[in-house]
């Protein structure tokens, strides 16, 4: 389930922020992405990059969620001058998107059997997001990043 929350902290003024709480489950992730998309559409912002980056981050949390007692993920976005500032809080297994460096390569001559079926998510986050920061302390994980306010076509 995904629920909207009041953004209570000063850093997240209601008029330009959205705060959500969601279960660490695939359907709740879809729900959260839908709300984020609507929020960005309402602000006339291109949502494609945000949707993809947040999908990768949230799906990763769902996949590695280990703590049945604290399944909730907290997600906050704020529209700043040139970017969307995002913060993701969870209490699952610690995993930083910066811990794995993956480079894009041409797969043109790679045998079909050797093609990768995973690992793209971290690459997409590192490629599309900026100012990625990750802290893990006392079982509480905090990921923050910025999404530039451009469309994906300008980033390729």
């Amino acid at each position, binding site marked *: 389930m995904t629920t909207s929350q009041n953004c209570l902290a000063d850093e997240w003024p209601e008029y330009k922020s959205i705060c959500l709480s969601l279960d660490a489950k*695939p*359907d709740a*992730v*879809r729900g959260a992405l839908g709300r984020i998309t609507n929020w960005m559409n309402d602000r006339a912002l291109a949502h*494609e990059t945000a*949707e*993809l980056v947040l*999908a*990768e981050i949230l*799906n990763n949390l*769902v*996949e590695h969620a280990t703590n049945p007692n604290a399944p909730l993920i907290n997600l906050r976005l704020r529209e700043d001058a040139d970017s969307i500032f995002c913060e993701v809080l969870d209490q699952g297994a610690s995993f930083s998107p910066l811990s794995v460096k993956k480079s*894009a*390569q*041409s*797969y*043109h001559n*790679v045998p*079909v*059997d050797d*093609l*990768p*079926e*995973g*690992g*793209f*998510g971290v*690459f*997409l986050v590192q*490629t*599309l997001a900026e100012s990625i920061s990750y802290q893990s302390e006392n079982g509480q994980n905090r990921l923050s990043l910025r999404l530039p306010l451009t469309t*994906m*076509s300008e*980033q*390729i």
Partner: protein
Amino acid sequence: MELVHSNTGDISIISVGEPRIDAASALQFKEQFRAVTPKTANRVVLDLEGVGFVDSSGLGAIVAMMKWLAPDAALELSGMGENVRKVFALTRMDTVFKIHDNISELSG
């Protein structure tokens, strides 16, 4: 996850009737694909017309189906929207598939 199989000449076309191939639906996509696609077909085209969102799980699922069809067929893609094309381009996975603009472009 609704996938529909049709034939044009000797080409098997698998049409995706869902707007998203993502973490929530990747497993069903693979299961349904294997259920409706003749494994020994010479040419198989995955028609992504109407799919507006593919994430890394969806991408991985599509690659898995390419591997499943090999070596009898090399999975081809068609009808990719802008959003989907960008994900394949960013990850360089567009170098792996033969890509068509749409179904009517296929030669029989």
